[in-house]
């Protein structure tokens, strides 16, 4: 009787409390599996990486505590220094190249021309295909007797007089630059879409005002369109750089696990692969992974600083 009386007093709040609790439980259960996976395999695993990196950690046998020795050892290995140099050089060249190509394609495709949808679709397709397929195809095109040299020959280049005799991927002076060319081509389609997304969001009235004020096309591009594309510049450069520093697929496909010829395709990630899965030095590999993370993270922060904090959120 008394309980019923109490319930009669606060019928709303009790059902609301039950309903709230129900909603909490549903919410938590809906995110439980993803959050567990993230907590273990993305976040917890970072601490595990730090732990492993301080040991001499083989596949079997006893582990020896090394402190920071894995980190200091890495900086003494000329192959690792070569890998850092290659990765940085690759990023420094491929990022501006893919961004410039993406921007150019986006500006061309965005103009009101017949068939622009067709061109968009064609330019984007190389970004859809797998790196394994495209790189294998690229190796065929770039062999000394391949199509690329044939086209050069057609335009009057004497292949046997070239400094590398047309051995684009098997000469250590040109292998990395060839891969840069390949990836600028395959990624430019994605970069084009990022720029297109930004271009389509730009208010056309800015251009109209500039036109009536007598600005020519170049001036409009230079002083109106490009500055308004700042969020896309930021996004394209940041994602491009993160991707570039993780170069692995094309390097192992074109140069094997050693990044041949003569380590010219050895990248930081390929170096981790070698340390772990050919030499079974897992502690050492974990240390390199952490160094790569610090490098990527600090470069991303530097870019954020460079572009200003507001570009981060996609504002102008």
């Amino acid at each position: 009787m008394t309980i019923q009386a109490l319930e009669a007093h606060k019928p709303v709040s009790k059902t609301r409390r039950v309903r709230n609790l129900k909603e909490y439980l549903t919410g938590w259960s809906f995110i439980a599996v993803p959050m567990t996976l993230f907590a273990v395999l993305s976040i917890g695993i970072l601490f595990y990486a730090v732990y492993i990196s301080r040991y001499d950690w083989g596949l079997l046998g006893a582990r020896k505590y090394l402190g920071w020795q894995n980190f200091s050892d890495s900086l003494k290995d000329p192959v690792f220094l070569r890998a850092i140099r290659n990765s940085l050089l690759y990023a420094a060249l491929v990022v501006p190249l893919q961004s410039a190509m993406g921007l150019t394609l986006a500006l061309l495709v965005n103009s009101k021309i017949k068939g622009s949808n067709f061109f968009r679709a064609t330019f984007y397709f190389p970004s859809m295909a797998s790196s394994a397929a495209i790189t294998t195809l690229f190796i065929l095109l770039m062999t000394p007797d391949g199509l690329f040299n044939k086209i050069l020959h057609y335009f009057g280049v004497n292949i046997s007089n070239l400094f590398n005799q047309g051995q684009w991927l098997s000469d250590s002076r040109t292998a990395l630059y060839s891969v840069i060319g390949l990836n600028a081509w395959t990624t430019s389609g994605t970069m084009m879409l990022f720029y297109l997304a930004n271009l389509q969001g730009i208010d056309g009235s800015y251009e109209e005002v500039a036109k009536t004020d007598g600005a020519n096309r170049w001036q409009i591009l230079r002083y109106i369109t490009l500055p308004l594309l700042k969020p896309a510049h930021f996004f394209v450069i940041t994602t491009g750089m993160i991707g570039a520093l993780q170069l692995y697929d094309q390097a192992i496909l074109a140069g094997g696990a050693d990044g041949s010829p003569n380590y010219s395709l050895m990248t930081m990630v390929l170096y981790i692969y070698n340390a772990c899965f050919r030499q079974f030095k897992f502690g050492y590999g974990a240390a390199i992974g952490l160094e790569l993370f610090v490098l990527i993270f600090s470069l991303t922060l530097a870019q954020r600083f460079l572009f200003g904090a507001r570009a981060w959120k996609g504002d102008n």
Partner: protein
Amino acid sequence: MEGRQLKVIFGKYILLAILVLYSFVSFIPFFWSISTSFKTESEVFFNHILPEHLNTSAYVQIATKITPTLYTLFFNSLFIAVTIVILHLILGSTAGYAFARLRFPGRDVLFYMVLATMMIPDQLRVVPVYILLVKMGLISGHPSNFLAIFLLKAVGALDIFLFRQYFLNIPKELEDSARIDGASPIQVFTKIMLPNALPIIATVSILTFQGSWNDLFWPSIILQAPNHWTLPFGILEFQGQFQTDWPPMMALVVLSTLPILLIYLFAQKFIINMQLGSAVKQ
């Protein structure tokens, strides 16, 4: 006035010429792989545009003479891709809905945590993840290898983000009227939200399928046993075996690209618009 018009027309033709030229640059390599796959080995470096005869022996060789078989490579790639698509759809849509519409303590903090995981490169995770998988007994060569891939790729932060974004834009009235009728959150999700989310379901399916189908990094580390290889891993391994025998290699490249090409042909407008959409949201 006439001079200006002429200039505009002239500019248009230059523009068109550039576009056509770059289309060739985008298209010729793929055409070349198809053409080479129908050539004989000795014919390859004549570098003729088309093969002399439509020679299908490279395809016969790929279909009958490689180990693991072409069927195994295709089956593994497809099995992994389809399973991961299903996992992404289930986990992405439920979590996306919870983050968008349900109220519970810790919601926003946890969502930021999801976003933060996108900053962690796979290459940093590879060593500790591998050791963890070894300890769990998932790296050994029997079917549990696939389980390792599923565990690693079951959930995508980007999918949760995209689903959440989409559910936020579905009018709240739809949901409210169902709730007043006494529907539970789970009923609201399955009967109201999911049927209205077909575009985002398609988006996530295509993105995930393509990502899994093309992935080389994780399979090359986890799926070491030949009967577990995927198509990209097979391409990597066969490159050493076939060396200069290009037609079968190109046949494998063509066949492995075919599913992606088909999806692209049927849905290219949709794919491009959805990529544009997700680019805006990022």
